[in-house]
């Protein structure tokens, strides 16, 4: 069995078991759906962070705008539909991220990250205040999950199934992508941008395409999240949420494995859920565990070892599986 098949199989099994395992530990299909949605979002983010080596503080902006776009499309043009508004929202996000990416990809490293930070802050400010479009503080509501053919998605398990299928599709597509020549170039850019340029690659164009794919996948997750909760709020475009997405990716080990972000999401959501069920001081304990995780988890420090150039053989991976 090739590693690709193994990855897909693992993904499929986890997706099938997740709602039942969650039921067993006292959580719900809704939380399971949220986990899959965040997995999609972080898979998207990891195209940029893990494979291209660009740190983005701005993915909450795409997540939130994806949600707003899909919800607005359904409310205004496509009543009771799910698939078309989601596709429409992906097209909108792709177009917007192409424009924004063209501007901010001219900067590298921390400066790129900081520009994405400024962008998210701006999007948050706009969505919190543009009440006529986004509902402002109250959030945008008043839409439905709609139907796929005759299937009503209002049932939480049905909706989970749809999200899981989409999630599997995203995993498959991204797996193909990173194993394609295109993916190899991205990793080459991450490892040494200068060398990639000398090899004759149009680095800027590759980065832009990676940026657009990454933003669009995260926007897709945002759209699904809006339909899950029947509400899109400005909080989902906030810097805090960007930070959480990044945290999930990094906990998952960035370059370690394409499924890494999924592990990060599970850790983050499970710990936060279980802590906040048991104690009102969940933030304190969660913060402590989080610190310990970043400081002592080998997968985490391997990500930095590569960047600082300290790690040699052990940390230098070829293309991630």
């Amino acid at each position: 069995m090739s590693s690709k098949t193994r990855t897909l199989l693992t993904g499929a099994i986890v997706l099938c078991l997740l709602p039942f395992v969650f039921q067993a530990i006292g959580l719900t299909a809704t939380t399971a759906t949220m986990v899959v949605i965040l997995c999609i979002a972080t898979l998207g983010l990891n195209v940029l962070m893990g494979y291209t080596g660009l740190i983005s503080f701005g993915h909450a902006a795409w997540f939130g705008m994806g949600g707003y776009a899909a919800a607005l499309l359904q409310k205004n043009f496509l009543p009771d539909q799910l698939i078309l508004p989601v596709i429409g929202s992906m097209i909108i996000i792709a177009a917007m991220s192409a424009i924004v990416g063209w501007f901010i990809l001219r900067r590298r490293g921390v400066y790129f990250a900081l520009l994405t930070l400024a962008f998210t802050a701006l999007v948050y400010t706009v969505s919190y205040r543009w009440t006529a479009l986004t509902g402002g503080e109250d959030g945008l509501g008043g839409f439905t999950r709609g139907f796929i053919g005759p299937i009503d998605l209002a049932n939480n398990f049905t909706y989970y199934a749809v999200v899981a299928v989409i999630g599997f599709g995203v995993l498959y597509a991204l797996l193909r992508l990173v194993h394609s020549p295109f993916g190899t170039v991205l990793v080459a850019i991450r490892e040494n941008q200068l060398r990639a340029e000398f090899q004759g690659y149009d680095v800027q164009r590759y980065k832009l395409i990676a940026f657009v794919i990454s933003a669009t996948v995260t926007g897709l997750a945002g759209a699904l999240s809006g339909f899950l909760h029947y509400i899109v709020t400005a909080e989902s475009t906030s810097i805090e949420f960007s930070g959480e997405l990044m945290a999930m990716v990094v906990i998952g080990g960035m370059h370690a494995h394409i499924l890494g972000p999924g592990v990060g999401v599970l850790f983050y959501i499970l710990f936060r859920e279980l802590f906040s069920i048991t104690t009102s001081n969940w933030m304190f304990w969660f913060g402590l565990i989080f610190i310990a995780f970043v400081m002592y988890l080998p997968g985490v420090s391997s990500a930095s070892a590569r960047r600082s150039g300290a790690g040699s053989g052990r940390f230098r991976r070829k293309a991630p599986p």
Partner: protein
Amino acid sequence: MQLFFLFEQIVNGLVLAGYYLLIALGLSMIFSVGGIVNLAHGGFYALGAYLAVTLTPKLGFVPAVVASPLLIALLGILFERFILQRFYREDPILSLLVTFGLAMVAEQAIRMIWGASPLSQVLPSFLKGGVEIGPLLFSKYRLIMLGVVIALLASIWLLLNRTSFGRVIRAGIQNPDMVGALGIRLQPYMTTVVMIGVGLAAVGGALFSPITTVHPAMGSEILTIAFIVVIIGGLGSFWGVVLSAILVGVVRSVTVQYVPAAADASMYILMFLVLLLRPRGLLGERMVKFES
């Protein structure tokens, strides 16, 4: 008259620069020297405010504002020894994450120690009120704050530029390996820098405690704006932060005069523009670490 209003807001912006400098200076120091993106900066700011409020009934307002940053600076030793130390040579993203966790711990710790409801803190009457200089109205307290900021700036500048301590630090920013090769241990220097950095955050918190709400999440209120000031100024630049604080203060003040609702958006747009035109910020130096 319109022209006078504009002038009045520009002057206010200059005073406001002191306010922004207090928020951003400590963040900038740790960022430039250690390459640490300290998201827990807001936590130290909040702790500074809470300590000042707690100490005021016992010591009086002015001694409390002096004592609180000193205590927080001691806390900075632990912060540096047990956490930051491991991250100087690492990817900035890791220090960012670890301090993200620390910020949560700090916010909740405040809630556990002092309770969730906001605390009250009042300016002593001799510091309260306005001063009219010609047709202009100033807040007495802000003029004093401005004085404190200028004094702090001068001492830090002297420390960095006129002492051997400063020479090691500046060399360390540019080339830590070279400093190491010369047989100098950077460690104690870094501890001092972190102490100064978090101490400055606490100075901000303590000084702001009578003019802002003292509540557990107050740290996150100032974090974004602190970052914006540092970024506009440019990483690694001492005068960059000063210039940036002045620019942000004036732009914000003037925006309030004409388009009050855009006051905060003006800062984001300013940052966006500066970064597009001057990629390393106004006076930022080229640092390899931040660009790969």
